[in-house]
């Protein structure tokens, strides 16, 4: 295992760094970056995150939360908000779904910045961190924790806090963490003479297994892949490479150019293209709400797919039909389908579980009133309680990154006794493997960078273009985006 920093120590370090940054901000040399709402001069954390304002509010404070969760996760979130709303009178949370894709939500958020038409809490993709920090529209969680004397973050897995920090300052206030799993059809493995208890550990092994399955005539295209650019990010991070320079945006210097044109990207793209050319891989376009790959697996047209760990519940429900429908909140019987799906660790480029974190994180905005900021912080503390975090895991498939939660008997039982629990344990173990020194990219123009990666992937898989060509073009586009970003934040 990789080195692990003591969580409490890490918490202290990040708080110290937060204080340093605040001092700098209040000093006035980067007033732009400090919250425009707060002014910039004042007495530190309590000014930026007025946690006491809630006590002074007359009447309940209304706050709005934007998210993109659907299905069970949506229900979990709403249940949490309902419980919170019914157990106290000071705050009323309104939960608003903004579509089914993080990118859609980010677009809406960006739309709202000029007019300040923003939610009080945005549950957005973790990759937005740098952009949001630069936008001056959010209150870093570390600031609120300091103002409030809150030590809850000490209990979270260190890799998680690292990943979501900018210059050591924790930005989002709560985390719905997921990682990626390989879902595979055990029967197909057996029919091809492969050991279903020993799923492929690397992408190259996935190809090997697929070759065997195809050769055995089990299915025509054994691997179906939703061509999401963020898989590329996972593979690259796992291989120690990145999208941009300056240590994938996390170094001490300034990020100035793309670093996408590297050995790992070439290896990855070569492997994907070869698999497709050999007829082992069926790529499906990574559109919002793409479901073809789920059905390809469910209808046994394919043997393997790679997807987020939060898909565990959906896959289990859609494919196996052996869950109690009531448990899923469905009021009809799912027909039993005779299909034997299992989940294995993310097949990295060089070894299993070489990936990164993904998921949605909770950003507190600073555009509301003092009372609203305080109310949002209060709700986040409620959501961060270990039992609530357990609910996210049991019902929403997000990983229990709060250590108390992971160690609880309830979660241990869930892992030991249920199929989705077993799968999620695989994902949780994968999470422990993430290298805190290399947690993944931190990029200001993330939208543009991801668009470039998407274009490269699409060009390769669907556009009939060559590996070198698409990588070079994407790298140039990323460099341009970073230059514009550094330049445009004039």
């Amino acid at each position: 295992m990789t080195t692990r920093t003591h969580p409490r120590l890490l918490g202290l370090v990040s708080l110290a760094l937060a204080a340093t940054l605040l001092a700098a901000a209040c000093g006035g040399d980067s007033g732009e970056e400090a919250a425009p709402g707060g002014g910039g001069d004042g007495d530190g954390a309590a000014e930026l995150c007025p946690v006491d304002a809630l006590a002074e509010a007359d009447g309940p404070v209304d706050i709005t939360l934007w998210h993109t969760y659907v299905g069970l996760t949506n229900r979990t979130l709403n249940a949490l908000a309902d419980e919170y709303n019914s157990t106290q009178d000071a705050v009323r949370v309104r939960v608003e779904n903004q579509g089914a894709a993080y990118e859609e939500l980010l677009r809406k958020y960006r739309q709202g910045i000029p007019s300040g038409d923003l939610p009080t809490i945005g549950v957005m993709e973790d990759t937005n961190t740098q952009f949001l920090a630069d936008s001056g529209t959010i209150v870093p969680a570390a600031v609120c924790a300091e103002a409030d004397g809150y030590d809850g973050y000490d209990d979270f897995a260190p890799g998680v806090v690292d990943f979501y920090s900018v210059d050591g300052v924790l930005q989002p206030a709560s985390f719905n963490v997921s990682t990626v799993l390989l879902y595979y059809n055990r029967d197909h493995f057996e029919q091809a003479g492969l050991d279903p208890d020993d799923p492929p550990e690397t992408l190259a092994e996935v190809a090997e297994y697929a070759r065997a399955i195809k050769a055995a005539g089990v299915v025509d295209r054994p691997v179906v892949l939703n061509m999401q650019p963020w898989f590329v990010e996972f593979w690259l991070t796992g291989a120690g490479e990145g999208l941009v320079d300056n240590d994938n945006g996390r170094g001490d210097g300034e990020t100035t150019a793309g670093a996408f044109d590297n050995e790992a990207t070439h290896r990855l793209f070569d492997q994907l293209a070869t698999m497709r050319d050999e007829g082992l891989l069926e790529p499906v376009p990574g559109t919002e709400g793409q479901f073809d790959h789920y059905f390809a697996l469910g209808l046994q047209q394919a043997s393997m797919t790679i997807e987020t760990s939060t898909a565990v519940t959906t896959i289990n429900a859609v494919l196996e039909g052996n869950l109690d429908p009531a448990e899923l909140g469905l009021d009809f019987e799912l027909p039993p389908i005779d299909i034997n799906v299992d989940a294995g660790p993310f097949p990295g480029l060089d070894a299993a579980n070489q990936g990164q974190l993904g998921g949605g994180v909770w950003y507190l905005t600073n555009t509301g009133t003092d009372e609203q900021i305080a109310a949002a912080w209060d709700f986040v503390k409620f959501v961060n309680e270990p039992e609530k975090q357990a609910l996210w895991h049991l019902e929403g498939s997000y990983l229990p990154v709060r250590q108390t939660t992971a160690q609880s008997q309830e979660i241990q039982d869930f892992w030991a006794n249920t199929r989705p629990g077993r799968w999620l344990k695989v994902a949780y173990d994968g999470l422990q493997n993430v290298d805190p020194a290399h947690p993944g990219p931190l990029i200001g123009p993330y939208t543009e960078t991801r668009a470039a990666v998407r274009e490269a992937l699409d060009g390769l898989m669907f556009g009939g273009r060559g590996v070198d060509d698409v990588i070079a073009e994407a790298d140039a586009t990323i460099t341009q985006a970073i230059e514009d970003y550094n330049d445009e934040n004039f």
Partner: protein
Amino acid sequence: MSDLTVEPVGPSLGAVPSTRRPGRRRRLLKNAAWYVLLSALSVIVLFPVWMILMRAISQPISYLSAGQPPRPVDPEWDVFQRAFTQGDLGRRLTTSAVVTVIITVAQVSTAVLAAYAFAFLRFPFRRTMFVVFMATLMLPIEVTLIANVETIRTFGWFNSYQGLAAPFLASAFGTFLVRQGFLGIPDDLRDAAELDGFGHLGFLWNVAIPVTRPIIASFAVISFLSAWNQYLWPRAIVTREAWDTIQIALPKFASENINELNLGFAAAIIAAVPILLILVFFQRHLIRGLTAGAVKG
């Protein structure tokens, strides 16, 4: 305007007797052949609708496993009700209906007023003004999208009825259409009205509008249809789910329920019903409106 009869479903064609009388047997055979052809074409046109209906009422996995037959499999008749509740379709339909009614009423009113000015009033720069009006026909909302979204933001009208409706409160097409109708009013009718002491408002209300009512109604139906079907504009200025119109909510709802695909299809069918009713009840007006431009525009 009225020298071409636009009544496709009318019986007028039957009025002229055929000059030749082919054998009865031969005619029967020929008719049978036409019925076969027309039925075949109907099947092709309706096939997509039928397929989505089957998918809506069938249990999705069973339906796929059964090889997608053109009949329901394990039907779930409550699917429409579930789609309605889970997709909050009542609210979406209401939003769409309110916006559509606002737009239709406003377009008809502004178009009638402007058409009256162009048809009956003399004022400087009348021709220029008319050209200015018609120029807006060259300008689809897509071109001005960026600036209009900005304007709506400045007004603070994101997620509001006024935001959804504002750019569509006037219509050059409607103005043109109603003006054509007004121009068709015989001069003696105007003179008579003047003798009766009607002012402009009186003439407009008591004579011009009643006489051109069919044209106005046709325009209203067209206006309703296009307002109901709007997609790009609400997509751009609605940032809160609560304000989603039915057209926006529909694809979202379908992609959110991949483990119950039939819900999305049921929602699509529900969304089509209001327009289907319009088609049934206002078919004549709708057809006249749709063909208005084709007939010597």
